[in-house]
């Protein structure tokens, strides 16, 4: 399951970035961007279902495993094509590519548990869309229009 970001909750504290780099030998797969000093966005690999990075990888180092895009460093030749192909700039490191591995071994990726404002979630897809839907429905319901 990829990590979903609720942009409205992100306060750009960089907690996810730090947690990721602390648990991945100093390399972070999460990037916190502040846009126009108005919005914080925590950018994390989308684990696309038809991932451009997999399409360009001729060494077979990037593979789709279930809902995840997994990088096998032993197969990687360091050509850097995946970095060029990622539409979100979330593969870093050039010839030694690094991307979000969703913290194998943990039930929940560390960036999700560490986020102070609860902006990140890793639930199933339905939960994410459903969450926004429920919020919007609540707002409408609170408008007070009654039968």
């Amino acid at each position, binding site marked *: 399951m990829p990590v979903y970001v609720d942009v409205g*909750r992100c306060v750009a504290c*960089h*907690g996810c970035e730090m947690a990721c780099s602390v648990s991945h030998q100093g390399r972070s797969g999460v990037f916190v961007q502040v846009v*126009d000093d108005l919005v914080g966005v925590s950018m994390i690999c989308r684990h696309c279902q038809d991932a451009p990075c997999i399409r360009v990888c001729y060494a077979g180092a990037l593979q789709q495993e279930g809902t995840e895009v997994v990088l096998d460093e032993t197969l990687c030749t360091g050509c850097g094509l995946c970095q060029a192909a990622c539409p979100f700039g979330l593969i870093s490191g050039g010839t030694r590519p690094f991307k979000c591995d969703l913290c194998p071994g943990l039930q929940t990726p560390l960036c999700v548990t*560490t986020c*102070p*404002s609860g902006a990140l979630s890793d639930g199933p897809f339905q939960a994410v869309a459903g969450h926004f839907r429920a919020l919007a429905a609540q707002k409408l319901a609170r408008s007070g229009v009654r039968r």
Partner: protein
Amino acid sequence: MRLPGLPGATAAVPEVMSVSDESDRSMVATICPYCACGCGFYLEVERGQARRIIPRSDHPVNQGALCPKGWASLEMIHHPERLKWPLRRTADGWERLSWQQALQILADNLRRIGDTRGPDALGFLSSTKCTNEENYLIQKLARTMGCANVDSCARLCHASTVVGLRRSMGSCSVTNPLSDLANSRCILVIGSNFAENHPILARWVLQAKEAGATLIVADPRRTPTAWLADQHLPLRPGTDVALLNGMVRHILDQGLHDRDFVQRRTTGLEQLRSSLADFSLARAERITGVSAGELARAARAYASSPASAVVYGMGVTQHASGTAGVEAVANLALLCGQLGRPGTGILPMRGQNNVQGACDMGAMTEFYPGYRLPEDPRTVQVFGAAWGSTCLPARKGLTSMEMMDAALFGTLKAMYIVGEDPICSHPDQSRTRQALQSLDFLAVQDIFMTETAEMADLVLPAACWAEKEGTFTSAERRVQRIYRATDPPGEAREDLWIVSNLARTLGLNFPYTDASSVFQEICRRVTIYKGLVDLGDFGGFWPCLEPGKWNEILHQDCFPTEGGLARFLPATYCPSTQEPGADYPLLLTTGRKVCHFNSGSITRRTPSLLAISDHLVVEMNPEDAAVLEIVEGDRVWVKTVQGSASGYAHVSGSIPAGVVFMPFHFPATNRLTGDARDPISHIPELKAWACQVKKEV
């Protein structure tokens, strides 16, 4: 009482706990050493080295979350620049000493100056980063030497809260637990940028917001906290009192106040009403720059919601009218009856992990432990008997600000500074430097060679939080234990060891073996801590008179004042002395950024935080920048009457025209601020200074 919707202690095993069979690896529970939220995590220790941080998913404060500073706290423990040996300044540089020599020198100097010039020639600064036990001992050391000059950096952040809230409602702390914010239906945030400084609060605030709460943020800047707001009130720096008074007056005019609460639980409404006779919304609009309509909307939202909370920070307190600001906050909450219930309350957000504890322990010159007044004869009697001392001062001594004055004036001759960096944190750096230079003797006890330590005659290496035992009291009055995870580097020692041994060298009666023996005495001597004998996994809240019994929400039935009533105190708005003029056309305000902490002595040495932000930024509005021909990233000089400093421009629409913002984590910032202070609490004006900015050529 237990609150609805508060997380209880659930699974005790952390999700990522991976204790191997190797006996040399262990997990030590501890509390974050940075801000005052009191987040819990484990330190994984392997062969004496702290290797990893594992946030506690079962901890009621952070629920497994941690901000970047918390993650980076590991880097201070085994930092190569840690002080390892006692050092003495000589003509040829620093000379390494043994502990016996160092303590003897310190004791001799304190004794010599105390004997010749009297105990009032001594000054003690205790540390809000140290444990409750250490703060208790440091103030005891000072007072048993007959010296009333003992203070801490609580002076610089929330002295006005301690004074102001005590005057109006008898208690000077957060009234409701932080997580209780989730139960609020309206949250007014004034002068607090919690999203950066107490990120964990965002969790609870957003939870409330999703349940339909209104979030109002009053801040000159559009901070990350303001990003979350439903309503942002961009007031001019230094006009908080006017904003609050305008709201209070509007609530009175519209009859939105809680008449029943005001009648049953408060006194002084008529004085308040008459003091606000000329404080119309229109006047508030003129002063604050926030439209009357917006003010009225905010006032109505706060007054009419079933549960409203006020969160405030140093934007209210760090002013020459800081105490008035705090009293104005109290007036608003009292008037609307937004106290004593879940989701309500006043939450002054304390900055340091143990600033609440330092105040509780009497590391403020106005109070003996447990907020007992020195002027009260019983106080001196009780502590005199407890400590076996006949020379306890029955008066308030000098505040940390006044100590600098006295040093310049020549009446204060020696200072013993524990875990503080006044050069960086006090206003008007050149004056502070002069003051410390004019001392006969300066001893500094710290974990790094701070800017202040560089000036000392004697430097003592202390242990950091992971290297000692004790208790911290978080902003929400939660007293929690920390455990020793690693050994201090070199010959560094716990502050508790240093202070006790210094006291023994001075011939004082300090019969303490460890932190728990001190804590037992605290439980006996400090009434609000009386029942906190067993702190369990997640600590306990004060006031606690019987073990296991405490109120997480204060003021439910009465206020801890004589008569049990709270008082309305007319909060007078005084215009800032620092009006921008021809020479200094802009207004400088200071604050904090998420990746640094206070004077920066720790975070400026933490590589992973420096990787995110490593230089002093000067934030300014695009309009001002255009006039001065400054673009993003330019090196600029900021000048005030006090001095000048350089930084890198950050041009941003998030700051209003005419205002300049600089974080105070870098030594340069406090070269610019001056020495105006609140007459009652002596908190310095750090939030509004007239300045000019120039591009470096």
